[in-house]
């Protein structure tokens, strides 16, 4: 047992070293892109390395029961994304770096505070109401960006309330599912979730709707184990989707673009066609960081279509690795849910994993033409302050639960 521990630790050091190397090499390469050496890139890389090392030290020595593997995965993903953002536009990359720093701080705060919070599960209902309010705000003072009205713009900073609302929603669901086993008692929760989804549909945020729906249904199954009720809820959702197809033209456009992008390659199918072209142009090893052309031809190449950009510049192999990282993250998260004691902890942990998993699936699936395009970002990698903040908050909660489980295990040994 001791030997495997040391074997693993050496490996972890090696992994952190590899990530650091990756950061340094990518920014060095980028600094050579335009004739003269770009020193900002070098500074940038040092900042990224610093963040990674600080995290590592904190995890190794302070947060001993937190999940180191998750931290490694998240760091790798974030830095792959950051390097690409820098390649696109150094200004947005700096913004992203700042968000990264803030998100890390938030993550650590959650990791400190949450294990001490005994009564989190009592606040489920409150969280739910808060969440609905957050979603409702954008209907009142929201601005429309890229076809969906779920943004709030304050002094040049745009935030998406539907992102933190995700967290509030799983708190709601975990709280009530932990408390009640009977379906009757779960109705109020269901109504709140329903209202949230309707608000999202009204704001034309199809991706978030799908995300909330799937997470809620899966958590429902986990909490109750009642197959028929889950199937019924799922059916309701499917009907809702069909209805929205009939009612809303923008849904029809998306579905058409998904089925026949090549029939309207300059109009409705443009984004998907360019995405597929970008993915295939990269070949196995990519066109080289800085050589891809997604920036010119593919809208939202830095946010929703970041995966296509990764395939184009880093290559399909690395694209596949990125997907694999998420798989490992999901696996690890589920193990954590199994380790957690208490219904609330387990269900909440699963909710976190569910959000990350479904978001990843919807994003990559859309970009690869497996499912229609929706406006969800790829966690950690896509550009987006709210997205990054929420994803790290979720990871923070995951780590907090890991700490809790770890401490409980220790207690049990003694």
């Amino acid at each position, binding site marked *: 047992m001791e030997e495997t521990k040391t074997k693993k630790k050496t490996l972890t050091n090696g992994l952190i070293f590899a990530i650091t190397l990756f950061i340094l090499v990518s920014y060095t390469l980028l600094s050579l892109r335009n004739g003269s050496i770009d020193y900002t890139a070098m500074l940038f890389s040092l900042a990224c390395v610093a963040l990674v090392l600080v995290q590592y030290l904190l995890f190794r020595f302070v947060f001993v029961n937190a999940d180191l593997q998750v931290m490694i995965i998240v760091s790798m993903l974030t830095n792959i994304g950051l390097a690409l953002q820098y390649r696109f536009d150094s200004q947005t990359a700096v913004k992203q770096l700042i968000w990264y720093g803030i998100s890390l701080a938030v993550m650590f705060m959650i990791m400190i505070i949450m294990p001490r919070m005994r009564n989190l599960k009592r606040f489920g209902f409150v969280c739910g109401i808060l969440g609905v309010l957050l979603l409702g705000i954008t209907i009142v003072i929201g601005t429309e960006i890229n076809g969906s009205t779920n943004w709030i713009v304050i002094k040049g900073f745009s935030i998406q309330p539907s992102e933190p609302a995700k967290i509030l929603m799983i708190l709601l669901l975990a709280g009530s599912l932990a408390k009640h086993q009977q379906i009757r008692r779960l109705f109020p929760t269901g109504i709140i979730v329903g209202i949230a989804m309707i608000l999202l549909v009204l704001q034309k945020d199809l991706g978030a709707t799908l995300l909330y729906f799937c997470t809620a249904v*899966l958590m429902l*199954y*986990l*909490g109750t*184990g009642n197959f028929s009720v889950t199937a019924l809820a799922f059916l309701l959702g499917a009907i809702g989707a069909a209805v929205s197809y009939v009612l809303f033209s923008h849904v029809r456009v998306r579905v058409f673009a998904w089925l026949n992008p*090549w029939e309207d*390659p*300059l109009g409705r199918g443009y984004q998907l*066609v*360019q995405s*597929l*072209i970008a*993915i*295939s*142009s990269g070949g196995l090893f990519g*066109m080289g960081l800085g050589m891809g*052309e997604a920036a010119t*031809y593919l809208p939202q190449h830095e946010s929703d279509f970041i995966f296509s950009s990764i395939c184009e510049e880093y290559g*399909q192999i690395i*694209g*596949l690795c990125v*997907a*694999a990282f*998420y*798989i490992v993250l*999901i*696996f690890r998260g*589920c*193990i954590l*849910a*199994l380790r957690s*004691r208490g*219904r609330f902890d*387990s*269900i909440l942990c*699963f909710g976190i*994993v*569910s959000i990350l*998993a479904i978001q*990843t*699936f919807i994003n*990559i*699936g859309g970009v*690869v*033409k*497996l499912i229609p395009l929706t406006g969800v970002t790829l966690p950690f990698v896509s550009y987006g302050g709210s997205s990054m903040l929420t994803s790290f908050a979720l990871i923070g909660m995951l780590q907090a639960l890991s700490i809790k489980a770890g401490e409980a295990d220790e207690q049990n040994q003694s």
Partner: protein
Amino acid sequence: MNRINHRLRVLQVLFIALMIALGSYFVYSVAKYGKQWSHSAYNTRTKSGYDLVIQGSVYDRNGTEIAWSDAPNTRLYSDDEVLRLSMAHILGDRYGMMSGALQDRYANTLFGNERSLLSRFTESVENDLLTGDSIRLTIDGEIQKHAYNAMNGRSGAAVVLNYKTGEVIASVSLPTFDTLNLTAEDTQNMPDGTFINKVTRGLYPPGSTFKVITAVSLLENCDNCDALHFDCLGENIVDGVSVNCFHGTVHGDLDLNSAFARSCNGAFAYWAVHDLGVRNITKTAEAFGFNRNFVFSDYTINNSTFDAYGGNADLAWSAVGQGQTMVTPMHAAMIVSAIANNGNMCEPRYLRGIESVDKGFIETAPKVYANVMSQETAERITEMMLGVVENGTGSGCKISGVRICGKTGTAEVADEAPHAWFVGFIDEEETPYAIAVILENAGTGSSVAVPVARSILEKCIEVRP
């Protein structure tokens, strides 16, 4: 708690399975469609990558430079106008009017993408531009020009193959265009068919040249071919179907050899209906490549079709190359090549090899497409085809001292003059060439196509490419 754990496990497996499905779909669709996507017209990338490369040259088999570049994004062509005009369809045009021409097919090679990263890097250290590899074609420039001149401006196609190796010695399609001086407006005003390589994409009714296939089928399926016999009355009725010979010529009493030499429609129609049957003839045709999907590396060729299942009338006329049968000139040349080559049909190719900047000349190996008949049958039909030239419809092709075998064809076209066909080969070890010539709406095979073929074959004997 235990139940929750159980459900957690189920959901864990569900998630992992979903993601693996996603990954598999990704790998599958990229592997299958990736090339198509990146070659799509909406991909503007490939062209911009080429700004840094000097495209490699295209040479004919003897090393004559036909196309080359001295700077990125410019392409220069030979001063020899006849050479340019004759090579146009093989090279392709810069406006994308032709698809899949050789310079497109081998774009990766010509732009140096097949060179190793290391060699490209070393070159970049010294120069600011890369050089691409060059390609050497199987075409012989002299013969190509001669074939172009022999066709004398008439629409159609001519192709010469080396039947032992499958190399395409000459491939001309008319009407043609000038690769050097083509402007965007010109592309709109050219006559029909200018931008089609008729050698590989032109589908025509084979006319009497199809009797070669019918004859092979008879040789393979009849127990005693020498006993086959027909009395041609010029205007014949076979099983209630009227089958006339050309211009109503009365051929009289015929056996297989004489019917073939004189190209008697009635005889072959009768034998096809009475002694062969639609199944046998279809089987032979398909063995020769009809109704099959040709997938060759150098070019796209349209599939030849043969369908005689519409009753005796259909069978009768299909046996003499009318009906619904369609064939490309390239395929016609492939068919006679197989006969000349003991039943082995080689895959025709335009590429002799790649002149790699780093590794020198890399030759392409010949490939056999199929073995379509036995050597015995090949020898017999060779003799019959020799008869056509010695004392039959192809006598205009006789060259003294050389064994020339062939078959003429006059393919009837509704309301227009018939197409003139000639397919044949030189049955000599040192000059193993097969030829197919078609001149659209030009008249009879023996009067129009045969002189063209003879001229080209004479040149081949002289030059020995």
